[in-house]
């Protein structure tokens, strides 16, 4: 682990030059994988995340099928080489927990009742990790689900907020995550319904409230980026045979 920096914020700028309410740079590529039904490659600062979606497809083993709805399966996995010290491949307790709450983050927006007996499989591979992989994974998964054409109430957008040098900041980078005072990963619908929320560190009630409000601002920014990426990829494609064109307003909000 590197040394703790003396200050995280100097003259209103963070270690990487961002302001306190600024996200790292985000790059989105839709459908990079052709075998999966939907996929998304996401670069979030120095994080590199691949997400793929399969389904709805038959769920095996059969006894796990639900007669009333699709079973959502979410696998968050870090590549062995994604961090400084190689991690043992396969599930860790951390990745099992992240997979569970990641799955919970999506079930609200998926119309699982439309697809009884099936599985909707979401796979997240962290190829390069630099703090915030669970929220970056959720953002990529959200786009991969849309890319797979799975009916959803809306997109899920995620970001982390935290506290460094006594200030609430958006989207923690590695140093801020390691040495900061708190980390709050949040995911929500475009309308601000929270589907994922964790926290560790130390915050007062009022600091937490401030953090939550900043998370909403961050998620709104992420949502715009996600929406833009979908429009760029699909509006042209559908406009060619214009009867199928998706009005922009329909790519949207779970709460509308």
């Amino acid at each position: 682990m590197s040394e703790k920096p003396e200050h995280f914020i100097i003259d209103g700028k963070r270690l990487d030059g961002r302001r306190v309410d600024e996200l790292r740079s985000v790059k989105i590529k839709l459908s990079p994988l052709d075998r999966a039904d939907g996929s998304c490659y996401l670069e979030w600062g120095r994080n590199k995340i691949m997400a793929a979606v399969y389904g709805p497809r038959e769920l095996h083993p059969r006894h796990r099928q639900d007669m009333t709805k699709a079973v959502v399966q979410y696998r968050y996995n870090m590549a062995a080489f994604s961090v400084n010290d190689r991690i043992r491949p396969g599930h860790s307790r951390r990745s099992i927990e992240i997979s569970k709450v990641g799955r919970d983050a999506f079930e609200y927006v998926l119309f699982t009742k439309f697809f009884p007996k099936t599985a909707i499989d979401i796979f997240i591979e962290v190829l390069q990790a630099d703090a915030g992989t669970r929220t970056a994974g959720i953002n990529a998964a959200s786009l991969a689900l849309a890319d797979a054409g799975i009916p959803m109430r809306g997109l899920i957008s995620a970001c982390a907020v935290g506290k460094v040098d006594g200030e609430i900041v958006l989207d923690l980078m590695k140093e801020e995550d390691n040495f900061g005072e708190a980390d709050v990963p949040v995911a929500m619908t475009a309308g601000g319904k929270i589907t994922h929320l964790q926290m560790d560190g130390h915050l007062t009630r009022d600091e937490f409230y401030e953090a939550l409000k900043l998370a909403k601002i961050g998620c709104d920014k992420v949502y715009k980026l996600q929406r833009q990426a979908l429009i760029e990829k699909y509006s042209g494609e559908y406009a060619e045979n214009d009867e199928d064109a998706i009005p922009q307003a329909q790519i949207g909000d779970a709460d509308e």
Partner: protein
Amino acid sequence: MSDDVMAEIHRDYLFNLVLKGERDDGRAFDEFRDISIETGVAGMAEGSALVTLGDTQILVGIKIQPGEPFPDTPDVGVIITNAELIPMASPEYEAGPPREGAIEIARVVDRGIRESKAIDLEKLCMIEGEKVWIIFIDIHVLNNGGNIIDAASIGSIAALLSTTLPAERYGLGEDSPLPVRDIPVAVTAIEFGGELLLDPSLEEGKLAGTVYTVITNSDGGISGMQKSGIEPLTIDQVMRVVDMAGTAAVKIREKFLEV
């Protein structure tokens, strides 16, 4: 199938009660079930506590041994938390390695103890980079009557408060109490029928769309949170739980832990 029908009927019953501002067992929405704590129940452990929270019974045992620190934190002791949902505790549990439910419980309890800095881990370092004390917190759920996380959290800190560092056994000096300096308390709420209910019973927990845990310290600060379950929460609901949890945690801490 009959189970499903019963579940539906029961759900409607509880739902209608909630609309009237009531719960099945007569509690207020922000009221915990009775809690009892007995420490020193497992004689071979360095510390232990048997906690009952309503019908839930959990035994937490602490074992401590010298070992190597993690390479990235060479100068502090190690905490390892594990939860076992043993088949004795519920007809729904099966034997085998911990699954995601048990792992989540252990990690949330661990988060509260770690992030509140309740254990002074720096005092558990003997030789930097070579030898530190390793604290094993093992949570044994004996009877699942709902809200395991809160009971496990109370049991873990109660057990830690009763723990002795077994230095003599390893020829490392005199035994001493484990340095514990805070009392994190987890308070779990569910959202049901648009209302927020603390300390869900087994039935309430099964019907809940969302389970949300807030862990607070003695200074009122928040040291951990976990939202689980598929239904979303609004920012207002989250803040309401934070406030309810803070108040409830103060009562729990006063009543049972600062003895």
